[in-house]
């Protein structure tokens, strides 16, 4: 075994070369001896053994968008709760009442969506 600073790297290079040779050898052997039968089915997408139907692009149910919109809007309004919660103990009851009103107005929006039958899955 060669010694010295670059010697260590020579060892590394030897092992790397061996590794590449091994991989290339096995894969090449596989290519060489394996039987080759070309059929159309082989080029299809694998879907749990079931024949794929239709294209790769699919449409989502359009009625789902209402849930998506409602979720995003209410989710984002929660942003105002975090800074309020951080300084809550310094602000006292007035801030608490104000936040209750804020959430009350949000709840009114939710009640509106509920009454308009947006929340039901038709």
């Amino acid at each position: 075994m060669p010694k010295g600073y670059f010697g260590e790297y020579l060892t590394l290079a030897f092992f790397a070369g061996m590794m590449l040779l091994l991989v290339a050898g096995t894969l090449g052997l596989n290519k060489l001896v394996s039987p080759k039968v070309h059929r159309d089915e082989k080029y299809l997408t694998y879907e749990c053994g079931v024949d794929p139907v239709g294209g790769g692009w699919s449409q989502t149910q359009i009625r789902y968008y209402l849930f998506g919109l409602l979720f995003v809007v209410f989710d984002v309004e929660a942003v105002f709760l975090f800074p309020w919660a951080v300084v809550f103990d310094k602000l006292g009851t007035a801030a608490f009442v104000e936040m209750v009103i804020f959430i009350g107005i949000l709840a009114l929006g939710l009640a509106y969506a509920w009454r308009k039958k947006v929340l039901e899955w038709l």
Partner: protein
Amino acid sequence: MPVAWVLILSSFLFSVGIYGVLARRNAVLVLMSIELMLNAANINFVVFNLLLHSISYIGQVFALFIITIAAAELGVGLAIVILIFRNRSTVSIDEVSLMKW
């Protein structure tokens, strides 16, 4: 952190947004481009607040308001786009133009 980097990033985002608004014909992609422009403003506000060592945190608060209002606005916008899709089966801005001059 040099302020120039931030400005380059936010101006880049803003320009990409402007390009998207002008070049894209799909209404949904236009909405996404506008969102990029809003986020450019958000980056500016947050970073300027950090660099200015402002004790009032007005920049951060401004960013929060932009985020929430943008969500509400895009909610309304998407609803309009879907309404148009239902009536016209298209979301291309060029095709949605019955009225001229």
